[in-house]
């Protein structure tokens, strides 16, 4: 059924159709609307049987999720930003124990400086935690990926983060096709846990493992995650059969045939990139884009296949590996090792800075001329940075940098359409 609703609401309705038995969460922007809606569904009885557990922190949220999942319940939670960091210890435990929890990450920057807006720093900080990570391009894909995520997580007995851009998707009203309960029931089998805490058949979960077996347990986690690369294309095909549309998969290319310049990105940014590519193609530029849907496990073979014919690759990423450059770009470089292709890292849109078509047009043209730095910061205000660096050179007690930069930039509220200039 077609609906015009907020992205958070769409995800909440899709999660409810997956019949989770335990939902626990602690509110944090921009994730809050999702669990608020699920809380309503549990309270008014539309989602039953399900227990909605209010917890006192994100650490508690993931700890409750671990307990309920180990007890055999289909378990869901959601978080973002500092909330994800606060639960990090339990995040590693959930995957280490092999518990198929599904968690939405409404992607948001990490402080300091504190910032509530969108980028991918939060999810990518947990890229090695053992969770699978998938990124949605649209709200339709976000809701579809949640349905696929329960299936995949439970088959592998591994937890999954479904990542969607905070505010840009979570707070956007757009058209979605909401599946029926019958469709979701046909696609998503009943949860059959591999391990369960059952008083009738007691087991212990979470043994201490010494040097004699730690490597083997961790190797298994890696091997199991890599299985997802084989399972996902089949699940996406089956999804198409049941729901009648393409969603999910490992990677997607757009206008990649004969492309000399290939752009790589994840999440909602892909839409704006596609609009730019359409205009550039019309003007004769040989440019295309590769969208990464599955970030963990990283689909190395598919990325290499999609990019190997290009002369250059521009990785646009909403994250910054301080002291190195890019996170996504580093993964892409691994997929392209030994190929004679220039790979540019472009850090863009962090902390919610709008990524505009105008900036992308300029960037892609510069990249075509190989006229950009190996690590480029899109729309960086060099004047402000230089001013602060000069201040720090001239004054020992130069004070806090963020406050100084805000003073130099002036009152932002008076320039609502600041991106216009």
């Amino acid at each position, binding site marked *: 059924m077609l609906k*015009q609703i*907020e992205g958070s609401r769409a995800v909440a309705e899709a999660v409810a159709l997956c019949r989770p038995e335990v939902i626990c969460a602690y509110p944090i922007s921009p994730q809050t609307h999702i669990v608020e809606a699920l809380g309503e569904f549990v309270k008014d009885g539309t989602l039953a049987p399900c227990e909605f557990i209010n917890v006192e922190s994100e650490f508690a949220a993931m700890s409750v999720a671990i307990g309920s999942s180990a007890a055999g319940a289909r378990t869901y939670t959601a978080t973002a930003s500092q909330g994800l960091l606060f639960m990090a210890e339990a995040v590693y435990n959930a995957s280490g124990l092999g518990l198929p929890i599904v968690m939405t990450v409404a992607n948001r920057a990490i402080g300091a400086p504190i910032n509530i807006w969108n980028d991918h720093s939060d999810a990518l900080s947990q890229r090695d935690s053992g969770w699978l990570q998938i990124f949605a391009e649209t709200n339709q894909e976000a809701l579809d990926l949640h349905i696929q995520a329960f299936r995949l997580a439970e088959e592998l007995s591994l937890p999954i983060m479904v990542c969607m851009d905070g505010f840009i998707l979570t707070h956007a009203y757009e058209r979605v096709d909401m599946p029926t309960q019958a469709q979701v029931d046909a696609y998503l089998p009943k949860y059959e846990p591999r391990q369960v805490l059952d008083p009738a058949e007691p087991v212990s979960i979470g043994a201490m493992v010494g040097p004699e077996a730690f490597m083997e347990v961790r190797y298994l986690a890696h091997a199991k995650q890599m299985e997802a690369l084989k399972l996902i294309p089949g699940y996406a095909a089956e999804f198409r059969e049941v729901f009648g549309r393409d969603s999910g998969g490992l990677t997607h290319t757009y206008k990649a045939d004969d492309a000399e310049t290939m752009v790589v990105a994840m999440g909602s940014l892909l*839409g*704006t990139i596609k609009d730019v590519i359409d205009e550039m193609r019309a003007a004769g530029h040989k440019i295309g884009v590769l969208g990464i849907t599955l970030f963990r496990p990283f689909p190395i073979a598919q990325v290499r296949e999609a990019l190997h014919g290009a002369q250059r690759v521009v990785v646009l990423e909403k994250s910054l590996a301080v002291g190195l450059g890019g996170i996504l770009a580093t993964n892409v470089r691994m997929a392209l090792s030994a190929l004679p292709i220039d790979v540019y890292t472009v850090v863009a849109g962090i902390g919610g800075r709008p990524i505009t078509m105008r900036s992308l047009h300029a960037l892609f043209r510069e990249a075509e001329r190989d006229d950009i730095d190996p690590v480029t910061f899109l729309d960086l205000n060099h004047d402000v940075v230089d001013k602060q660096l000069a201040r720090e050179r001239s004054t020992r007690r130069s004070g806090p940098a963020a406050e100084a930069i805000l003073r130099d930039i002036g009152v932002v509220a008076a*320039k*609502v359409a600041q991106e216009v200039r």
Partner: protein
Amino acid sequence: MFQVRIHGRGGQGVVTAAEMLSVAAFEEGRHAQAFPSFGSERTGAPVVAFCRMDDREIRLREPIMAPDALIIQDPTLLHQVDVFAGIKPDGYLLINTSKSFAQLGLADFVRDRRSERLCTVPATEIALRHVGRPVPNVPLLGGFAAMSGLIRLDSVIKAINDKFSGKVAAGNVAAATEAFNIVREEIAADGQARGGQRGAFSNMGSNSHA
């Protein structure tokens, strides 16, 4: 694609207006995308929300920088925020006010623009009368329907009933309808003043992706 930018203050329902506009466009079978400016909104602080409408899927996610239409929910923003940034030369402008453009200090701005696309409506007063609260967002949507011809009043009413129920919904329907009629009469009077010439409504596909 047709792009609308709504300016107002926290508490005036700016984001809700953009959402409801997208629902109204959806009711007419269009693709629509509404989103806020993602600020940490506080009561009284300047707030911006956006709505795109198109006959095909909308992929673009940048803020609306060259709007086809502006809805100004609070005229005190006119000289505080650069609300007109990027507006197209033949763009639509709807301001919540009982004053004239000259009284608002906009005589220079409106001089060379298509007068049938420049409208005012006292939306706060209308809302106070029908809803009992100074929330101008919904009557302005009624006014926008009349001004642009892009969405029908019926679709605005459907969006109202989608968002509200009971007395609040009924009050908002009455407010939107009154604002619709006021703006329609305003445009008719403008047409007579210019010798019966009516402005052509904007074509949805005219400004699509390259």
